[in-house]
């Protein structure tokens, strides 16, 4: 780290304010993102889903393969 001279306090203050403001912004945005994901997951767990959302995969009934018999003349 070079000697920042007589104005070191101003330089440190500028970098500290920048760090604090950016860290605060990152924290708020990331926290909000996590909160919304959690809320959506809770609602989906309760079975409240969007109309357009695909329903949970249900086991398909096993279909028997049958060949159509030719009708006798």
């Amino acid at each position: 780290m070079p000697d920042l001279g007589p104005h070191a306090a101003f330089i440190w203050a500028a970098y500290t304010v920048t760090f604090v403001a950016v860290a605060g912004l990152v924290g708020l945005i990331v926290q909000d993102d996590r909160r919304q994901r959690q809320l959506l997951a809770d609602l989906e767990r309760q079975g409240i889903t969007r109309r357009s959302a695909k329903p949970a995969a249900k086991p398909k009934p096993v279909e028997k393969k049958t060949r159509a018999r030719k009708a006798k003349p």
Partner: protein
Amino acid sequence: MWTLANPTRFLGLAERVIPWLAVLTFLTLGVGLYLALFVAPPDYQQGETVRIMFVHVPAAWLAMFGYTLIAIASIGSLIWRHPLADVAAKTAAPIGATFTFLALVTGSLWGKPMWGTYWVWDARLTSMLVLFLLYLGLIALWQSIEEPGRAGRAAAILALVGFVNVPIIKFSVDWWNTLHQPASILRTGGPTIDPSLLTPLFVMAVGFTLLFVLLHLIAMRAEILRRRVHALRQVHVERAAAA
């Protein structure tokens, strides 16, 4: 471009891009800070205070970039009524406001040792303060109207009217006699800054821009999810009332 304008597709893309972008942002800012604090020489006039420029200038650029982004998204919101344009405009405002705040504060901290004052009411500084107030106005407008569509349209009109301030900020140093120095990087004839100072500034500007894009993507994802949660709750209430 239009396929990405689908919120579900956007969420898928954001999920894939955000981790890589976070790593790239972290690395670029790390290199930028190293160059800015340890490698860049003192300026022949400003001395060591030139190091404040490495955070001040990118913050000021992104303050204007953020508002330009909001204005473009507002056009999309007003003309096509696209919800993703609305989301992009709304989520860019707090990020842009933070960078504007940083440009003002770091500029003041540079101004005191260099100009002998923290603040002067010259055209560049005043128009930046107006930009900050515009950001705050947009945030307040979005917070005060509950219905996102109505809030988005009102905010889009305010954003487009306020966009007139962006060219005023850029050209204020040419149009008026300001204490703030004229453009020394984005000017016809090329930058007037020595490469030893221009390189750290460029790396820091790229790092700050990546940080803006990263935070904007995360905030947009959160806003889309918030609207889904709101819609699901409404559906739930309607179903409960109908039952």
